[in-house]
C-alpha cells in the first residue's frame, strides 16, 4: 500500500473514476427527478437549490440528466475498449508469434485501417446503421483496436526468442499454451495502460458523435447530446454547456492520470 502515498496520479485518477462509477451505478437513487421529466413551468432555469445544475429548454433537470448521462459515457467507454482490446490482443499475438506471411498480412491490414480518419469511418457506419448505444459501442471498438494489436505484436516479438519460451517449446508445450500462459501474461502491462487511455478517447468519440446529433438520441441523455442542446441556446444558458463539458473534461483527465499512475506502478 506504499504506492498510495507516492503515486499521486494513480490515487487521484482512480478516485475520480470510482466517483464517476458510483454516480453511474446509483444514478436512479441520487437523481432528484426523472431524466425525461418535462416541467413546462421551469424552462431554462439557472442553477438553484431545486435544480442544482439548472434546467434545459424543456424544463428537464440537467443534474438528473447528467447523472444518467454518466452511465452512457462509462459503458460506451468500457465496452468499446473491451471489444478493441480483445481484438487487438488476439490479432497482435497471432501476428507476433507466427510471423511470416500472416504477420505481413495482419500488419498491412493494420496500416490500412490506420489510413482511415477514424471519425469518418465511425460516422459512415453509424449513419448507415441506426445510431443507438449498441452500434456506437461496437463501431468504436471495431475501429480502435489497431494500437493494441501493434503493442502486443511488438511485445511478443521481443519475448518469443527468450530462453523461457524456448524451454517451454522444448518441453512440448502447444502454441496456444505458450501464447496464453507464457507470452501474454508478460505483455499485459502496457496493454492495460493503453486500454485505460482508450476508454478516455472512446468517451470523447461518443460525446463528439452525440454532440453532432448522430450519437445517443434524445430523450436518452448523454453528456454529448446535452452539449448539443446547449449549442442552440448559446449565450442564454451557460449552465447547459458548462456542466456536461466539465464532466467530460474530468473523465478524460481521470483516465489519463490513472493510466499514467499505472505505468509508474507497473515499472
Amino acid at each position: 500500500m506504499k504506492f498510495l502515498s507516492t503515486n499521486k496520479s494513480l490515487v487521484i485518477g482512480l478516485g475520480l473514476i470510482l466517483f464517476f462509477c458510483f454516480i453511474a451505478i446509483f444514478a436512479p437513487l441520487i437523481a432528484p427527478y426523472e431524466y425525461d421529466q418535462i416541467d413546462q413551468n421551469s424552462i431554462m432555469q439557472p442553477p438553484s437549490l431545486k435544480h442544482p445544475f439548472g434546467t434545459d429548454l424543456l424544463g428537464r433537470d440537467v443534474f438528473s440528466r447528467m447523472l444518467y448521462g454518466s452511465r452512457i459515457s462509462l459503458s460506451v467507454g468500457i465496452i468499446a475498449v473491451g471489444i478493441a482490446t480483445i481484438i487487438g490482443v488476439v490479432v497482435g499475438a497471432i501476428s507476433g508469434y507466427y510471423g511470416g506471411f500472416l504477420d505481413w498480412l495482419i500488419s498491412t491490414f493494420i496500416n490500412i485501417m490506420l489510413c482511415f480518419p477514424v471519425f469518418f469511418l465511425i460516422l459512415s457506419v453509424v449513419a448507415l446503421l441506426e445510431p443507438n448505444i449498441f452500434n456506437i459501442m461496437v463501431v468504436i471498438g471495431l475501429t480502435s483496436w489497431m494500437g493494441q494489436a501493434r503493442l502486443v505484436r511488438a511485445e511478443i516479438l521481443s519475448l518469443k526468442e527468450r530462453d523461457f519460451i524456448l524451454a517451454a517449446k522444448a518441453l512440448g508445450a502447444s502454441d496456444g499454451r505458450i501464447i496464453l500462459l507464457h507470452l501474454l501474461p508478460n505483455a499485459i502491462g502496457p496493454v492495460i495502460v493503453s486500454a485505460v487511455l482508450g476508454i478516455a478517447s472512446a468517451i470523447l468519440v461518443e460525446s463528439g458523435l452525440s454532440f453532432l446529433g448522430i450519437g445517443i438520441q434524445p430523450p436518452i441523455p448523454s453528456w454529448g447530446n446535452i452539449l448539443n442542446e446547449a449549442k442552440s441556446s448559446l449565450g442564454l444558458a451557460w449552465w447547459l454547456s458548462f456542466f456536461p463539458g466539465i464532466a467530460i473534461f474530468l473523465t478524460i483527465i481521470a483516465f489519463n492520470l490513472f493510466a499514467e499512475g499505472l505505468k509508474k506502478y507497473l515499472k
Partner: protein
Amino acid sequence: MLTYITKRLLAMIPLLIGISFISFVVIHLAPGKPTDLVTNLNPKVSLEARMNLNKLYGLDKPVTHQFRMWFMRMLKLDFGESFSDGRPVLVKIKERLPITLAINIIAIVLIVIIGVILGVIGCVFQDKFIDKLITILVFIGFAMPSFWLALILMDIFCIKLGWLPVLGISSVDFDNFTPLFKLIDLAKHLVLPIFIYVFGSLVGISRYMRQSMIETLNKPFILTARAKGLSNRTILFKHVLRNSLLPLVTLLGLSLPGLISGSVIIESIFAIPGMGRLFFEAVMARDYPVIMGLLVIGALLTMLGNFLADIAYSVVDPRIRYKKS
C-alpha cells in the same frame, strides 16, 4: 533514394486495395441493398437516381465483379453523383477540399512552431515552475473536448464581447472589401477554429520535444561538445534541438488522420464550408455517394501524407534509406 521511393510506392499498392476493400465492406453493411436504405430514408431520391445507383454499384452482378468495378472507379476517383443536388461527388469535394487543407496546414505549422518552443522551454527550465505550468496547460488543452471549448469561446468572444463573427468564413459583403480587409475578415472568422485545433494538439509535440531533448542532453556526444568548451546555447540549438527535430516529421504524418477527423466537428460548429462539414451534411442527408467519396479521399490523403512524411524523413536522415524496411 530512387529505389527507396519506388519501394515506398510499391508498398502503397496493397494499401490502396485495402482502402477500397474496407470502403466496399462499409457500403454493404447496410441491411439489404444500400439503395434500399437510401430510398427508404431519403425521400429526395427519385426513382431515376435509384436506378443510376443500382447501375453504379452493379448490384445485380456477382460480388467479385462488384468489387472490381468499385476498385476501378476508385482509381479514377469516380464516386458517382450526389443525391442532394445531382452534381458529381468529386466536383463537390474539390470545392470543399482547399478550405480544409488550408486551415489544417496553418494549424499544423502553428502546432509545430509553438510545440517546439514549449518543448525547448520545458527542457531548459526542467521541473521549474514554468515547465510545470506548460505541462498543465497543454494537458488541459488535450483533455478539453474541442466542441466544448468551441462553445465556451463562441459564447465569450462572439456573443458576450461581440468581437468575432459567429459562423462561416467570410462576411456577407465580402466581395466588396479591399484585399486587406478581406484578409482581416478571413482572419477574424478563422482565429477561433484554428486556436481550437492548435490548443488541442500541442501536447504531443511539446511533450515529445521536452522528453527527447532531455534524453539527448545525457548522451556522450553532448559531453564531448561540453568538453570542447562549446557554450550552452550552441549545444542546445545546434546539437540537441536538431537531433530531436528529426522524428517530428513522422509524428506529423501520424497526426494527419486526427486533424481530418477533427474537421467534422469544428467545421460543423463554425459552419465552415470545408470537407468535414460536407461529410456531416452528407451523413445527415444519407447522401451515399458523397459519404463514400469522402471516406476514400480521407484515407487516400492520409496515405499520401504518410508517404510524403516518409520521403521527407529519408531526405533529412539518410540512415533511414539504408535500413532494411
